[in-house]
């Protein structure tokens, strides 16, 4: 269970607090999409929940333990992260990358036990990456890389998986595939999956719950249906030229003013 208690995320001056007074509870096994326009604070929130940056106020609790207060090593056993950044990892095979997810559980040598090996084989299979396990990570396409990075995070067997904008480089079928994979994973394992995305349509369809960042420092949580009906989506995303139609469930061109 993930609980946010009056959490505020952000930086020191001059940027200051980006999102404040966040209080919510997420039950195990939920697939959550975090939506908001660029600069609304998605990445800041995700990094804070991952323990990669400190909160400016309040706390985030995972199964009752303060994420910020966890020791790095035990946090790595409970929280896994996948980021947008494209990395070059010369010489790393896909198997090397996925095996990295078991690092928090191995001895000082990093020796993989038979159990570790079984977990790696299983996540490669679940993400459909078995076929290229022996290939070099750098030689993969964007979609394949994202699947491998997700496999790595799944190998970490985390209670909370945090994925920041990972679908940005993928085409539509690739995005559908990745998001339904994550949804299945959350439902099957009882782990919480938190995905930030630009992809409004898919997120509204697939998420168990949506966190909507309105761009003014507030976050609204709810099911897709509730958020649409109550007009929250429109308030967060509408511009002068485009508005979200609750009836159609998609964006339409706004009629010219006057």
């Amino acid at each position: 269970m993930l609980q946010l208690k009056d959490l505020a995320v952000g930086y020191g001056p001059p940027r200051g607090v980006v999102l404040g007074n966040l209080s919510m509870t997420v039950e195990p096994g939920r697939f959550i999409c975090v939506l908001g326009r660029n600069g609304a604070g998605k990445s800041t929130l995700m990094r804070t929940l991952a323990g990669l940056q400190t909160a400016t106020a309040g706390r985030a609790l995972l199964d009752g333990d303060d994420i910020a207060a966890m020791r790095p090593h035990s946090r790595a056993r409970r929280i896994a992260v996948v980021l947008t950044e494209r990395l070059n990892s010369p010489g790393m095979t896909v198997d090397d990358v996925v095996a990295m997810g078991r690092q928090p559980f191995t001895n000082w040598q990093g020796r993989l036990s038979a159990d570790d090996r079984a977990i790696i084989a299983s996540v490669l299979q679940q993400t459909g990456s078995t076929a290229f396990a022996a290939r070099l990570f750098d030689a993969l396409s964007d979609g394949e890389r994202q699947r491998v990075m997700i496999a790595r995070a799944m190998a970490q067997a985390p209670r909370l998986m945090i994925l920041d904008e990972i679908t940005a480089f993928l085409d539509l079928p690739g995005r559908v595939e990745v998001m339904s994979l994550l949804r299945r994973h959350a439902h099957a394992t009882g782990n919480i999956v938190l995905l930030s995305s630009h992809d409004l349509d898919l997120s509204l369809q697939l998420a168990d719950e949506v966190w909507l960042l309105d761009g003014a420092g507030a976050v609204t949580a709810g099911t897709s249906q509730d958020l649409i009906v109550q007009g929250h989506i429109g308030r967060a995303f509408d511009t002068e030229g485009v508005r979200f139609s609750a009836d159609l469930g998609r964006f339409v061109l706004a009629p010219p003013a006057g």
Partner: protein
Amino acid sequence: MTVFARTAAGSAGLGAAVLACAIFALGWGMISVPAADVVQALAGGGDSLNGHIVRDIRLPRVLTAIIAGGALGIGGVLMQALFRNPMADAWSLGLTAGGQLGVALVVTAAAFAGPQAISFLQAFEGPSTTLGAMLGVAVFALLMMMVARRVSTVTLLVVGLMLGFTVQGIVSIVLHFANRVGGRVFSGWNDGTFANVQLADMPVLAAPVLLGALLALFNAKALTALLLGETYARSLGTDVSRLRRLTLAAVVLLVAPVTAFCGPVTFVGLIVPHFARAVAGTARILPLLPLAALSGALLALAADLVVHAPWEQHFLHLNAVLALVGAPVVIALLLFSRTMRGQH
């Protein structure tokens, strides 16, 4: 084959090759000693002339080549992981030049400080020049880490090499004055050689290298995580700034004594890690360490063999031989490796 099996088989093969090459090197030269007599001489027997040649003249050189080659091989693996740069190495990023500068400054300071300082330096030449080299390597390593934050892989390589050339020029000038004041001969120091180390110096060379190798061993797992980049390494529970400090310390311990005793030894640390990765079939750091150490030792021994061939008239020097092997490998990596080619 699993990574472990490939590493074990590779290490065994390389170890045997190093041993064979070492015994051959002990027998080879102006005066040829048969392998059987070499083994006898090493055991302390045999005739006294052979014993003198093998134990006193050739053994220090061969041991130095093995230790230095191994140290540079491990150092290369650490540097490439630390800088996340397949072209990184103590020499290519200018750390070796920093070490040379450190040594040159120690020698010059002693020369200008007067005869007592010189005699003190002569008595403790190994330790004092090693300390000078350590300081120089450390300062240049910190400098290059700051540069690395701002520039691409290839730019960093060019900056490192140019830094190296600059320092070599400075060192030549500094040593020119040191030579005149202190009467020491440093000509040819930029060529690199394994032949200037006495058996008595061996502990001063070997002890820091051993310490550096151990430090590398205990940080191998964390360094593997760093291959994914700093953020992922942190998310896997790695204390990245501590890891950087420890790895840097290991590089200093490995590279500085080699530079102090042998001068700049080029290319070994740059190309050996690529060979080790190919043999192990992985980029994970731990399996690379023994493979890089042994193949570094083998490369250093082989290059030294060419330099000391019986027909050699002292035109060939160590770095010329290493450049003949190493430079084409680097060119091939730049032209054909996916990662390097992909960077503009």
